[in-house]
């Protein structure tokens, strides 16, 4: 129901209804068995902003996401959402789709909904898989599974969507398709998005801001001013990519 309303508003105002929430992360620290993963990390996300996190493997990107999703407890520091203190609707998408293999596609999407309703079918339609609703996840391709996982996340109409390399295992073509899907859904819904990725190009294509984690801190924060939709062939795009990549690679001593 809410979704319908959101869509109507979109049409009426041609300005996305901003459902996103502001996130403020301050002095966040986390260590596993004496190994400092995050040290006093600071990061702010504006409402409805799309932020990409890049960094070398093992630098704590997933840890940051898991802390925000409350799958893990921080040693110290705070994560606050908006001004009021209610826990926002947060959904996380993982590299593996984590669909329940014993539930059909539609039931997977409806996971955690009060009861099976139209919303699940509609979310499935938005990712273009309404005709696979009655199948088992095992028969879907990797890209289709990620689309189902995306539908499952979106059906809850999240205020904050956390994406942990959701496209990492996909082939280049499916990846670009998925990026476009994520971007269009984000523009339509206006949730705040935090995307972890290894792919600098992906980060630049999607994000308003690209941040780099190094040594448990955010050491680089760049606003991407390119107009959307962004074309990869653009000279400015390539320049930016080269610059950020150089910055990511410049410090080979990342803890691992």
């Amino acid at each position, binding site marked *: 129901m809410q979704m319908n309303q959101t869509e109507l508003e979109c049409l009426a105002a041609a300005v996305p209804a901003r459902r996103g929430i502001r996130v403020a992360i301050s002095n966040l620290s986390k260590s596993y068995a004496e190994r400092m993963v995050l040290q006093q990390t600071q990061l702010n996300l504006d409402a409805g902003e799309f932020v990409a996190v890049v960094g070398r493997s093992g630098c704590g990107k997933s840890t940051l996401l898991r802390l925000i*999703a*409350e*799958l893990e407890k921080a040693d110290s520091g705070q994560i606050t959402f908006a001004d009021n203190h209610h826990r926002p609707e*947060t*959904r*996380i998408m*993982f590299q*593996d789709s*984590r669909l*329940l*293999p*014993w*539930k*059909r596609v539609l039931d997977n999407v409806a*996971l*955690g909904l009060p009861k099976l309703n139209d919303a699940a079918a509609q979310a499935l339609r938005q990712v273009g898989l309404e005709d696979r609703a009655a199948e*088992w996840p*095992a*028969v879907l391709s990797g890209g289709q599974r990620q689309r189902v996982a995306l539908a*499952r996340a979106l059906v*809850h109409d999240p205020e904050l969507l956390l994406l942990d390399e959701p496209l990492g295992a996909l082939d280049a073509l499916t990846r670009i398709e998925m990026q476009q899907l994520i971007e269009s859904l984000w523009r339509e819904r206006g949730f705040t998005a935090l995307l972890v990725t290894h792919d600098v190009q992906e980060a630049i294509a999607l994000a308003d801001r690209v941040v780099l984690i190094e040594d448990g801190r955010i050491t680089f924060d760049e606003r991407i001013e390119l107009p959307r939709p962004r074309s990869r062939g653009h000279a400015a795009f390539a320049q930016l990519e080269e610059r950020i990549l150089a910055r990511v690679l410049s410090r080979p001593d990342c803890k691992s």
Partner: protein
Amino acid sequence: MELRISRNFLQAKLTCWVVPVLLLSTWELAAQIGWLSSRILPEPLAVAKAAWSLSLSGELWTHLSVSLWRAVSSFMVGGSLGLLLGLLTGSFKRAETLLDTTLQMIRNIPALALIPMVILWFGIGESAKLFLVSLGVFFPIYLNTFHGIRSVDKGLIEMARSYGLNGWPLYRDVILPGALPSILVGVRFSLGLVWVLLIVAETIAAQSGIGYMTMNAREFLQTDVVLVGILLYALLGKLADVLSRLLERYFLCWHPGYR
């Protein structure tokens, strides 16, 4: 195309029966020309006749139903206890520390080694057999349930929790279905074991049942009846196997390995 497939299928069906039929006819022939004494191995025809007359007199059905009843009831008792305790120790760390060591110790005693004690405790009545078979059936189901619960994909549980599932819904939608393949392996194992244990229990101490029928026949050198009993056990074992396969087909229809 269609026709060729069905003919191939028919051929395959027939081919697998060639060897049994050949064996059976050799056996019959050997008995007819006197190579095999009927005291050692009765001819197939005699076995068939014995089965026929036993079933006409109703004796076969009484023994069969008694054995079947024993198998079903001890499977139910042992199996449900195993399932329950397995779910308990698998789901709660505290239950595991409390119970698992004890159960693992008992598991190392072969059920059949307990026969003398069981006869002392229960005499040779129904409860002795029920106890023995239930005990044997208990462990495969217990162990596989425990293992199944423990090996449910942690990523799925984490995902379900972050989608707001907790308590019973989490258990019903994620943990139980995740453990089911393993639990069904235990069920299958137990169903196979029921008959082995029942054969032993019935041949040692019983006044009815297929085991009793065969032991009785042996005393009177009725080798054909003995063979009927053995074949019945084989048939029931096969039935149990088919049943467990059906259960797997039904419950694991989502699993690519069971389609």
